[in-house]
């Protein structure tokens, strides 16, 4: 087995204790937090609970078993690929999550695309024109982008583009145009600011290197120097941050999903925690852990492509 495959196998093997850890922590937290799932399912508004029905619901969900037994049962079923049945919806947890993955992936992908396009170009321009008006403008925009809360930017966009100008629908899930534009901008704005600042500092470091001076001395075109030599070498920290951020986006962007009524994994997780829907919460946490593990692995593997000096052994 070559070095890279061994590396991948080792990393995937290490994922097993991570999975056990996150599910155990979720399980313990959901049990420690006060709030009876049966009571919360039975009456959300009238706040009266029928003891007979509560007893039957408890038995149906296996909540009468001691907590360790409940956890072991969950693990045993999870190993068979069965994440259980949601208390709230009475349907397969796995199916519920899989259904929401396309919406989450579309939003995360679009937001990341916007963030990279804006962030990288703004960062490169700011680095090449250090201390100029353009640089100051990029710092200002990045500060605004990072400081502006998602829900506020989302509502501003809705007010401007949907209510006032009537260019886009205020919310909903559908084709990328027109439904994805506002949520993607809302989610991508903050991330683009982070990427812009990081690209700027990374580029500033790289363009002072000897090999850039050599490239300039050789008479290479500016564009070639920036893209081929500077940006590629400046990309490692950017890729690391983008990878971590993408994991976060794929785990669900709860606030953006809520403002734009976007049916993603984030809303599913929050709704399940509110009503203490343990199987669904466990399933969502497992999904998020998987995304993080795979994204981190992808980021690590990309280092070898970006920097041939990196070897996996």
């Amino acid at each position: 087995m070559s070095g890279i495959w061994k590396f991948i196998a080792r990393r995937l093997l290490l994922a097993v204790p991570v999975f056990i850890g996150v599910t155990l922590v979720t399980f313990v937290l959901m049990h420690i937090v006060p709030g009876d799932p049966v009571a919360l399912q039975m009456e959300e508004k009238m706040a009266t609970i029928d003891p007979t029905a509560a007893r039957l619901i408890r038995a149906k969900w296996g909540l009468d078993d001691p907590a360790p037994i409940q956890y072991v049962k969950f693990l045993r079923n999870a190993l068979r690929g069965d994440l259980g049945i949601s208390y709230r919806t009475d349907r397969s947890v796995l199916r519920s999550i899989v259904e929401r993955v396309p919406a989450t992936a579309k939003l995360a992908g679009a937001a990341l695309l916007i963030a990279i396009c804006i962030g990288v170009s703004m960062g490169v321009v700011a680095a090449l024109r250090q201390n100029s008006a353009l640089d100051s403008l990029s710092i200002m925009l990045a500060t605004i982008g990072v400081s502006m809360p998602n829900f506020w930017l989302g509502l501003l966009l809705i007010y401007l583009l949907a209510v006032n100008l009537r260019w886009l629908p205020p919310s909903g899930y559908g084709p990328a145009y027109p439904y994805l534009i506002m949520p993607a901008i809302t989610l991508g704005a903050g991330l683009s600011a982070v990427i812009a600042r990081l690209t700027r500092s990374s580029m500033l470091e790289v363009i002072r290197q000897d090999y850039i001076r050599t490239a300039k001395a050789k008479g290479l075109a500016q564009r070639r120097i920036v893209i081929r030599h500077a940006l590629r070498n400046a990309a490692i920290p950017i890729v690391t941050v983008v990878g971590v951020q993408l994991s976060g986006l794929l785990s669900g962007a709860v606030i953006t999903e809520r403002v734009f009524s976007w049916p993603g994994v984030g809303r599913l997780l929050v709704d399940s925690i509110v009503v203490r829907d343990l199987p669904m919460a466990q399933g969502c946490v497992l999904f998020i852990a998987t995304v993080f593990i795979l994204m981190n692995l992808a980021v690590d593997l990309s280092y070898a492509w970006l920097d041939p000096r990196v070897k996996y052994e």
Partner: protein
Amino acid sequence: MKSSFIRHLSILALVGLLAALAYIQPVTAQTPVAGGHFRRALSSDPANLDPAQTNTVRAISVKMNIFDSLLRLNPRTLELEPGAAEAWTVSSDNKTMTFRLRRGIRFHNGREMVAEDVKYTIERILTPENASPFIRSYDRIAGAQEFVAKRATSVGGIHVLDRYRLQITNSVVDSTFPLTFSDLFIVPREEVERLGREFGQRPVGSGPFVFVSWSRDDSILLRSHANYWEGRPLVSALEFRIIPDPATAQAEFDTGRLDFMLLGDTNYRRYADDPKWKPYVVEVSELFTRHLGFNTTMKPLDDVRVRQAINHAIDKATMVRTILQGKAITAVGPLPPSINAFSPALRGYDYNPQRARELLAQAGYPNGFELELHGSSSPVIGRWLEGFQRYLADVGIRGKIVQQDFGVMLDRAGKAEIPTWTLSHGGGPNCVNYLGPFRSRNFGAPGNRMRYKNDRVDALIDEAERTFSTQRQVQLCREAERLIVADAPWFFFNYNKAVLVHQPNVHGLVGNPVEMDYQPMHKVWIQPRR
């Protein structure tokens, strides 16, 4: 001469006809028009649409359009009226109800509904494996306990007399029993068995709308049922859009993408005071009583004078006018104005800080005390608690606001771990059910989190439960309410005013005090926009 007369007469007739048409025009504008796609919002996904499962407001708002209930509750009068059953009688001993189903009610799969379907629906709710939250509604039918305990294969108290007639016998005399049938959504056995657990995701009923599709957390689409026994609904498609953020819902409404929306405290005035929207605002005093519950076993709230003092200390009228923007009615007792037992003579507690201080002094707290004021983490509740805190400070009570997850608060209140909690109690259209949280048999999670016990109140509610005479029941409930108000196990805050605003071309929406979201959609229609 003659032709001239005829010509004049013709002109006169024409003028008359035109005048008549001009007069008639506004009337024809109000004539129901068939067709159109109706869009309304739900604050979150209903999760499951099986009538035996979810009892949330959101789920029932959808289910009531897909299924027929055996009886219906008239939203204007709160009286029972025919549903799938066109007639019903109650026996002289007040225990047995006989229902006669309409002929020709068709499930969406084309089969006719029969009495066996009603029996199956009730037995399905009582089947322990189904763990239905509605089990309490039917577990006092004769033979139900044996069925639940698996000592019987069917419920002895349900008799199918013939294809369309059914007799149900209760084991006790309970005047609220007929009401339970307004929530009984009848299901076709063959579809339940065919779909299994999926029935809650792809429901098949006999109601005015047929299930088409469900995109989770996004929308539910229904289409009109061509063979509905009351006639095909006027709108051809009904879409429930899941919009969790109220500000987004408002944007959707303002851009015409929702046909109506419910209003909250923050946007109520914007529409109710706007002459453009005012004609399209529908308001009703909802059957919900907002209150601060008191743990009557915990010092110093175990002293009735302290509880009365808190009721006198808070200026609820000002709070309703300012914090709630007038979207509520100040409460005098637990029973709201929409219920028939509401007593206009009941005065409740006036805002009287001086009297509050006197009561506190009599109870041995002349310098007040510290009190935790618990509520959920919602910003609305936060504003209420700040109001309480401000007024209580005037009489020396040092309130400490504790906001937490709703489930955490409910759990701790049920276990009597906290001194107070902020809740909205809704008990439906009957005063016996409404006063349920004040019965000592409902201690803890079943509703009486206050651990309030007054034997006379128990006896009065018990008697009201056994009384089928509406007039007598109202008297008993009013007397019980008078005693409850005197004992002050709650701070009686306000009755919610439910408000919706609809688009100008929408007709037929009603103010439903049980729940504004429960709209009889088959009677709603949309005037096409010119």
